[in-house]
């Protein structure tokens, strides 16, 4: 028997072959006309209007705030998973402990809410 990791590894290699194979098939079948590098066809498509200014700029900070709160909660999920698996064996102590943990996070969420981090500006 192959180990689980070996199975996943081989499967991953095979899976990469699928889109790559599709690209190769398309490369063999598709039309390949010569395109002038200054052709209007290669300009970013913004509904026909010429693009103005650079695209790669500093972006709205809103997204960053969400990413920060997301990190805290995602780590919470990682902590909760092993606890949830063994919940029925761990007993009352672990349950109460996790209640306290969740309460702290709810307070954090409430604080972020109060400070307006969850508002879209």
């Amino acid at each position, binding site marked *: 028997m192959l180990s689980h990791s070996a199975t996943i590894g081989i499967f991953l290699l095979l899976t990469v072959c699928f889109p790559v194979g599709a690209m190769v098939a398309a490369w063999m079948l598709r039309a390949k006309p010569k395109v002038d590098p200054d052709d209007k066809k290669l300009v970013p498509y913004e509904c026909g209007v010429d693009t103005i200014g650079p695209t790669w700029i500093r972006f709205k900070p809103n997204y960053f705030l969400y990413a920060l709160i997301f990190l805290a909660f995602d780590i919470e999920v990682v902590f909760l998973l092993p606890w949830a698996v063994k919940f029925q064996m761990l007993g009352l102590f672990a*349950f109460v402990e996790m209640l306290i943990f969740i309460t702290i996070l709810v307070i954090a969420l409430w604080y972020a809410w109060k400070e307006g981090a969850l508002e879209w500006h």
Partner: protein
Amino acid sequence: MMQKIETIFVDLADWFIVLLQGWGIPLAWADAILLLVQFLGVVAIVLFNITILVWLERKVSGFIQERPGPNRLGPFGILQTIADALKLLTKEDIIPSKTDRWIFRTAPILFMTVSVMLYIVLPLGKDMQVVDLNVGLFFFISLGSLSTIAVLMGGWSSNNKWSLIGAMRSVAQMISYEIPLALSLMGVVMIAGSLRLSDIVAAQGNVWFIILQPIAFLTYFIAATAELNRGPFDMPEAEQELTAGAYTEYSGMRYALFFLAEYTNLVAVSALASTVFLGGWQGPGLPSWLWIIIKTWLVMFVFMWIKWTLPRIRMDHLMAFSWKVLIPVSLFNIVATGFGLYIFKGLGG
């Protein structure tokens, strides 16, 4: 007879291994060759389901909007998807001049790879799993969240304002809805006591988890809709304002890969929903692999129904709904499940 149909795929796999060993191939190599066959099976399942799904989605949307939908190619237009696929396959490949080429090229391949990898842990019938990981559910969630990166890569490297806005919205939405998605599965894990998907299915022998965990099913379903960027949560590719969001600059096969991967994800997420909440492959009468197909298609139909019935939700409402409604509700569900287990199962008493 029934027993034969039930175990047909498992028997075929066993027969194949015995056959290969009969030819003097060592067991490890025979397993690897079987894995190749399983991979081809997964690809066949994916392609077949998507072909039908894309056609059905257009038919359902046509039905809901009181128009015929595709009806020219084949009976009821069923060959429409194949014609579309051939068209995309033979289209000229355009990479705009200002793109970040390598990231632009890798993004669709990464997206498709991640989506197909999801199927490795899904139980598609009794004993029909490529690999029965002991952290199967966790594997599924973590791989599923990788598609966020592919969308961001595609949107950022396109050097197009629509793409960038679409990608940013998509990332914000997907990370926000990932938390309620994972939290709503937590209640199920607490009852089943395992992350192994076959254990979770086995734990639903008497009663399905949709009955024990109705709130979790609702939050999972809503969060999954948002994770899939499907309507009413399709702000990232709101076609009236962003043309196609992160996929605007993609054409031909690259676009097709994104498009296929979205539907691959839809099938996988629906299959997970039926595995975790609707009893998986268990059901009376019919063989197990038919039951999971029926349940998955029912869930997918509900996804379509919702997409074509509800109007799109505004970005600020969308984010607020996840953080201010879904996360508190799913946290409450975990606590309630904990108390419920103590009361009804008499834990610790």
